[in-house]
C-alpha cells in the first residue's frame, strides 16, 4: 500500500465525520493547551522569582563572627575584604543582646516639653554601612573615619527609628539620649535593601559603641559583583582573620542555578501533573471515539479486507486517523497555549519565556497521545475476520 493512499484513506475517514473529528480533538486541545500554558507560565513565573531572587541575594555574602576569647575580626579588617576583587562594598557591624533593647529618648522639636521615649536597638558599624546595606541617606550624612577617629558623640538613625523618635529634620542638630548620654543626630539612613531591620536601629561609630558592649565585630556584610559571591564567600574569612578563617561562619547565597531549578521544579511538577491529567483525559476521549468509529465501520473494514487490505493496513489506517486527531489537537493546543502565555504575560507585565522546544514538542505529544489512544481500537479493527465484518 502506498503511503499516500494510506494518508488519503485516513484523511477521508476523518473528514467523513468532520463534527465528530473536531469534537474528538477537543480533549487533546485542552490537554496540550494546559500543558503548554502551565509549562510556559511556570517557566515565565519561575524566571520572575529567580530574577527578584538574584537581585536581592545573589550578591550578598555575610560573615558571622562567633564569640571568642580574643577578637577574631578587627574593625579595620573590613578594608581587607573591600580590597578583594569582586567586592563592591563591605561593612562591619557589632550587635549584642544587651544593646538590642535600649531606651532612647529625644526632645520633640515641635514641642520640646514632650519627650519621646522608645526602646530601640543600638548597633555599632563601620562608616561604610550605607553602601553595604544598599541604603540611601534620607537626611544628613553617615559618620566617617574622622568621626570614628575623634570619638565624636554622633549617631545616625534608621529611617524608622527617626520617625519613632519624631526626628524629621536635622538643621537644628537634634539630639537623642541613650540612657543619660546625649548624641547629635547627623543623618537618617533609609531605603535599605539589605538588613532591613536596621531601619529601626540607632547606629553608632565603634568608638561610642564600646559603652554599650559593642566593641567587637559580630558580622561583616559584603556585597559582591554578579557571579562573584561564591568566590568571595571562600576568600572573605581569610582576609578578615588570617589563620582563624575556620572559626568564621559564611552565609552565601545559594548558587543561582540551584535556586532556579528549585523554584521551577516545584511549580512545574504540580502544573505538569495537571497537564498530563488533561492529556490522559484527551487520550481516553480519542480512544473512545475511535473505538466507536471502528464499531460503526465494521462493514467498511470487511469491504477493505475483501479488496485486499491486510490486517496491518486496517490497523495502520485507524492508527493514523487517531494520530492525526491527536496531532491536530496538539497543534491547536500549542497555538492556543502560546497565545494564552503571551496574554498572561501581557497582563502581568512579565517577559514571556517561550521555549521553542515546547512549540515543537507539544504537537508531537498530541500525536503520541493519539497514537497510543488508537492502539486498542486499531487492534480490534485488525482482528476482525472479513467474513464476520461483511455479514
Amino acid at each position, binding site marked *: 500500500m502506498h503511503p499516500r493512499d494510506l494518508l488519503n484513506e485516513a484523511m477521508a475517514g476523518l473528514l467523513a465525520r468532520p463534527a465528530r473529528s473536531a469534537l474528538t480533538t477537543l480533549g487533546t486541545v485542552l490537554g496540550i493547551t494546559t500543558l503548554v500554558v502551565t509549562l510556559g507560565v511556570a517557566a515565565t513565573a519561575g524566571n520572575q522569582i529567580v530574577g527578584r531572587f538574584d537581585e536581592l541575594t545573589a550578591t550578598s555574602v555575610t560573615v558571622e563572627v562567633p564569640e571568642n576569647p580574643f577578637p577574631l575580626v578587627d574593625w579595620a579588617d573590613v578594608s581587607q575584604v573591600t580590597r578583594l576583587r569582586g567586592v563592591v562594598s563591605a561593612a562591619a557591624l557589632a550587635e549584642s543582646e544587651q544593646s538590642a533593647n535600649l531606651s532612647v529618648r529625644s526632645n520633640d522639636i515641635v514641642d520640646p516639653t514632650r519627650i519621646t521615649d522608645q526602646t530601640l536597638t543600638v548597633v555599632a558599624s563601620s562608616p561604610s554601612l550605607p553602601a553595604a546595606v544598599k541604603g540611601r541617606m534620607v537626611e544628613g550624612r553617615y559618620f566617617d573615619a574622622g568621626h570614628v577617629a575623634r570619638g565624636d558623640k554622633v549617631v545616625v538613625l534608621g529611617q524608622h527609628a527617626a520617625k519613632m523618635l519624631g526626628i524629621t529634620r536635622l538643621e537644628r542638630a537634634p539630639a537623642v539620649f541613650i540612657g543619660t548620654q546625649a548624641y547629635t543626630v547627623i543623618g537618617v539612613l533609609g531605603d535599605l535593601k539589605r538588613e532591613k531591620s536596621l531601619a529601626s536601629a540607632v547606629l553608632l561609630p565603634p568608638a561610642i559603641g564600646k559603652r554599650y558592649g559593642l566593641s567587637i565585630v559580630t558580622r561583616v556584610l559584603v556585597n559582591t559583583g554578579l557571579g562573584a559571591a561564591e568566590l568571595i564567600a571562600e576568600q572573605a574569612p581569610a582576609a578578615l582573620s588570617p589563620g582563624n578563617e575556620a572559626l568564621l561562619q559564611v552565609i552565601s547565597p545559594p548558587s543561582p542555578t540551584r535556586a532556579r531549578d528549585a523554584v521551577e521544579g516545584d511549580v512545574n511538577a504540580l502544573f505538569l501533573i495537571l497537564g498530563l491529567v488533561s492529556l490522559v483525559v484527551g487520550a481516553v476521549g480519542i480512544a473512545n471515539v475511535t473505538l466507536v468509529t471502528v464499531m460503526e465501520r465494521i462493514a467498511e473494514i470487511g*469491504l477493505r479486507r475483501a479488496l*485486499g487490505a491486510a490486517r496491518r493496513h486496517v490497523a495502520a489506517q485507524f492508527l493514523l486517523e487517531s494520530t492525526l486527531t491527536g496531532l491536530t489537537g496538539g497543534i491547536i493546543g500549542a497555538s492556543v497555549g502560546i497565545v494564552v502565555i503571551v496574554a498572561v504575560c501581557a497582563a502581568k507585565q512579565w517577559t514571556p519565556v517561550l521555549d521553542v522546544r515546547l512549540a515543537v514538542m507539544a504537537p508531537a505529544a498530541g500525536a503520541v497521545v493519539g497514537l497510543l489512544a488508537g492502539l486498542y481500537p486499531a487492534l480490534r479493527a485488525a482482528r476482525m475476520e472479513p467474513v464476520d465484518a461483511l455479514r
Partner: protein
Amino acid sequence: MPEPVILLDDLTKEFPTDPPVRALSVINLRVEKSGYVAIVGPSGSGKSTLLNMLGLLDRPTSGSYRLDGIETTTLKEGARTKVRGSRIGFVFQSFHLLPHRSVLENVMLAEVYGAGPRTGRRKRAMRALERVRLSHRMDFLPGRMSGGERQRAAIARALMGEPSLLLCDEPTGNLDSKNTDAVLDLFDELRAQGMTIVVITHENEVSDRAGRRVRITDGILAEE
C-alpha cells in the same frame, strides 16, 4: 488442458457452534475459465457460506480449494489476502459502497491495496465506470443514486484490477427488470472477455442466463 479457475475437492465447512452446524458438506466443484455459474437454493442452505469460501473470506474446515491453480487452503493469511485482492472481485448484495466517497473514489479504492502503480488509477476507474455506463455519475455520492446505479458502481469496483473471478451475491436483488437486464448483459460481455462469474440468485431470469446452475440443499451441492 489449462487449470480450472475454481477447483473444490471435498470441501467442508462446519461452524463450531453447539451443536456444530455443517453448512457445507463435501463439496466438489470445477469451474473453467469463462465459466458462468448460478448458485440457487433455499434460505439457510449454505449459498453465502460457499461464496465466502470461493472469495477466500473464510477458511474451510477440510478439503481443498485451488484458485487459478493455487492451493489456497494452506496459504498464510497474508498470501490469502494478496490472492483475494488481485484475483477476486466481489459484488455484495448490499453494495458496501463508502457513503462519504464519490463513486469514482469508491471504484478507485479497489486498487488501493494492490501492488500496482498509482498512476493511471483514475483513468482505469473511469474506464470501469464506462463499462457499466455510469460515467455521468462519477462525482456523485452513493446516497444520491438509485439502487440500480449503486449496483453498477459496485460492479465497476469489482472490475477494477481485472480479477479472474467475479463473485456476486444476489446482484440483481434490488433491481427492476430493466436494470437486471443491463447487469446480465454486462455479465455476458465480461464472460466473453474471459472472466469467470459465480452468482448467487433467487431469480430464474438470472439463473437462466447463466450457462450452468448448481443447487445447494442443506449444504449439499448438486448440478441441475
